[in-house]
Each structure stands twice: as structure tokens, then as C-alpha cells.
């Protein structure tokens, strides 16, 4: 969308691998785990970022939390947030 932009234009939006309970679900345990629990790994992490000071698009980024090395980024709306092949 915007091409390569400065880090300060983006804002972190949390773990992108957590499965969101289906809309209207009354399963309190599933909602609790979705909202409050984190894998918080030291290593590969797939996460949301928003280009807040730009196109406002939500992205899904692969990043290593032990080194901050950044892998690929995709648009979140393309379904990149599903739990699959998180980098190790």
C-alpha cells in the first residue's frame, strides 16, 4: 500500500495467532483466553500492526522477539492472521 515507511508511523496491535471466538459466542472461557492470555514467546511471533499515521491498514508481521529481526508482512484482511507456520 504505502511501501517502506518509518517505524514510528506504525502501532503494535497484539498477537495475531489467537483464534477469536465466533461472533455471538457465549463461551466465557474461550473469550477469557482470547482476550487475556498470551503465549508471549521468546522467538518467533506473528502480530498485528496498524499503519496509524498512513493508510490505516492493519498488517500481520512476522518478528523474532529475541532479536527484533523482522520477517514478512501481509495485509491482515487477506487472512494472514490464522494460526499457521509461525516462524520459529
Amino acid at each position, binding site marked *: 500500500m504505502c511501501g517502506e515507511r518509518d517505524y514510528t508511523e506504525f502501532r*503494535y496491535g497484539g498477537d495475531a495467532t489467537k483464534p477469536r471466538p465466533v461472533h455471538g459466542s457465549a463461551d466465557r472461557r474461550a473469550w*477469557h483466553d482470547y482476550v487475556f492470555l*498470551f503465549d*508471549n*514467546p*521468546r522467538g518467533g511471533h506473528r502480530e498485528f500492526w496498524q499503519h496509524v499515521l498512513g493508510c490505516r491498514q492493519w498488517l500481520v508481521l512476522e518478528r523474532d*522477539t529475541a532479536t527484533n529481526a523482522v520477517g514478512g508482512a501481509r495485509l491482515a484482511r487477506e487472512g494472514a492472521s490464522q494460526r499457521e507456520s509461525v516462524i520459529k
Partner: protein
Amino acid sequence: MRRYSFSNLAWHALTGGPWSRAWRTPEPKSSYDVVIIGGGGHGLATAYYLAANHGIRNIAVLERAYIGSGNVGRNTTIVRSNYTVDGNTQFFEYSLKLWEGLSHTLNFNVMLSQRGQVVLAHGPAQLDVLARKGNVMRLNGIDAELLDRGEVMRLLPFLDYSSEARFPIWGGLLQRRAGTARHDAVAWGYARAADALGVDIIENCEVTGFSLAKGQVSGVETSRGRISAGRTAIAVAGHSSHVAAMAGLRLPIESHLLQAFVSEPVKPFVNHVISFGAELFYISQSDKGGLVFGGHIDGFNSYTQRGQFPKVQEVAECAVALMPSISRLRLLRHWAGIQDMTPDGSPFICRTPLRNLYLNGGWCYQGFKATPASGWCFAHTIANDDEHPLSRCYSLDRFERGGELDEHGIGNWTYKQ
């Protein structure tokens, strides 16, 4: 343990010779009544209060690196008790009361300096919020004074009161009993006092797993062999998630970076701890003359202990907006610590779903000031297998019960707390 005293100091000055080591370096035994994972301030304080308050002396504190290497030596050393939410208010006031007697308790000068903290308001609505906070504090027997603009000017004449000030100062809330303490001395003092009561402090000993069967923890695997334990306690804030993950637990915690800064030393002129009201920014002056300050977390989860430059700029902007006179000071040091961030900004001191496993973590911005009360309450939790009345609110299941302590009213966001 040889007590530190004036007569001992004079004797040493006259006779020379080295002081004895402050704590032993024992080999780990194969079994302890209590094993505490993490030799930071909270783990050491817990060991000390287990021994001193509960008579449990067969304790090991396992530290992966060396004492003082973690967050206890990576903070801005501020102690205060100006919290609004019920639970936090009482807990942090209890901690401040323990701070006030700590040097005597530990026979180690933690250099508590109750120089007072001023939280600034930059508009009438913010001053109303501070008035409410002050009222909550006073109703709980905690000292608090609301200051108008003139009173702040008299107390802190070096702030920006000009018509160009981006955030004009309307007033502030002063807690005179707040201040700073020497962080290293807190770690060393608790380590020395715990060691004197028989606690084994084992450095360079990394926990690699738990002995776990039928929902019960019976010890730990370490880089120096297996150690069995009647009760096992986790106090490794910053790394709580992956230590707990070894026991199969998933926590309401994300690890984030918080940076802190020290300027070159200058003559004393900042005589209080000052908190900016327009952004999260806090500054004090160390005994060596350096200005010690910090701001928000970097904003995304990381274990790197390396801060991002844009945050350095933001924090410097806050500093200069508040105190234009320091704009030409150079930064001497800056570093980042890894801190547990929770969805409500409040910690955990609690039992866990596993028997004989206890958790102390999730300290967010407030680990250092909480150290004494955290150790006090966690020791109670471990000794009695039940939460202390002061820390019952810090249970692991509070989100399920609607018991969040969202001090800043931010909501369920670890990275916005």
C-alpha cells in the same frame, strides 16, 4: 553475619583488612522446603520474609545470572503510594511503610530518600483527577497535598511556566513521603539478610524445567541438577511467561521493554521526584548528580533489552517540554529492561492452578516500589498456601471474576497500560 554498625566501621578503619562477603556461595542441596526461582528484589525479599516472618529457613533462591543483574538494577528507583484503585492503594502504602523501616530491618542502608513526589496537572480537569486521587489517598491515611500553580512554582521553580509552555502547569499533587531508594542496595540488603537467616542464594543456576506429576509441582530441573522442593515459587518478572510455560501454564502477561536514562552529573537542583502530567514521564536527580528519568514502554513485546531510538526522542522531548534548562545536558547512559505487562497494569501474587506452585509477576511499571510488600505478601502466600489479605486482589483468575484493577482505565491492552 557481622552486623554493620558505627563501631564496626571505626574498627575496620583502624585495623584495615577486607570486609567479609555479604552472603555465602553454597552448592545447591538436593532438596529444600521452598525453592524460589529468581534472585531479583522480589525473590530475595520473599526468601527473607519466609525466614523472618514464617520461620521457614530451608530455602533456596535460584538466580540464572548474578544478584542485581536483572530489573532490580534496571529501574528509576522511585518509591511512592499514590494509587487510586482499591487494592492497589492499600498494597502500595503497606510497601512504603516497609520501605520506611527497611534499612533498620535489613541492617543495610538502602538510602531511602523521602524527597517527595509531585504529579503535575496541565489543565483544570486533570487537577480534578488529582484532587480525587489525593482524597482517596487521605481517606486511606496516606499523605497527599493538592498544590495550585503558585505552590508548584515555589516548590519547582525550574519548570517551564512561560506563556510558550506547550503544557501549562495548573497545579499538582504532592506526596511528601514518596522518594527514591538505592536499587542495588535493596538487592544486596535482602540477599545478605536472607543469607544470615540460612537461605541458600545460588547464583548462575538456571531453571530448565519443573518436576510435575498429577497437577503438583515437586521441584525443578536446573543447570546444576535436579532440586526437589516442598513448594516452588516463580519470581522472574520480565520472563514469567516462559518459566510458567515450562509448567504448562499460559499467563495474562506480555513482555515489553521499558527504557531508562541517566544524564551527565550536574549540581543538585531537582530536589523531588517529578511526574509530568501530559505524558508518562518521571524524573529525579541521583546522589551522584545525574538526572534519572524514564517514560512509556516501547510499545511492542520484546526480550531484547535494547530500546528503540524514537522512544529516546519522545522521552527527551518530554524532558525539555517540562524543564527547558536541561536541553543541553548529554545522556550518559540509557538501557532497557524487560517487564511483564498485564491486561490491567496490575501484578500477580498468587497460587496457580498447579499445587505447590506459586506466582509472583506481572509487575508492569511498579515492580521496584512494590519490592518489600511483594516479598511480604508472597511469603505469606507460600507459607499458608493462601493469599495475603493485601494481595488477594492480585490473583491469577481476577479477569474471569471481573476483578481487574485497571488503575489508568485503559482496558485490556498490555501494550497501552
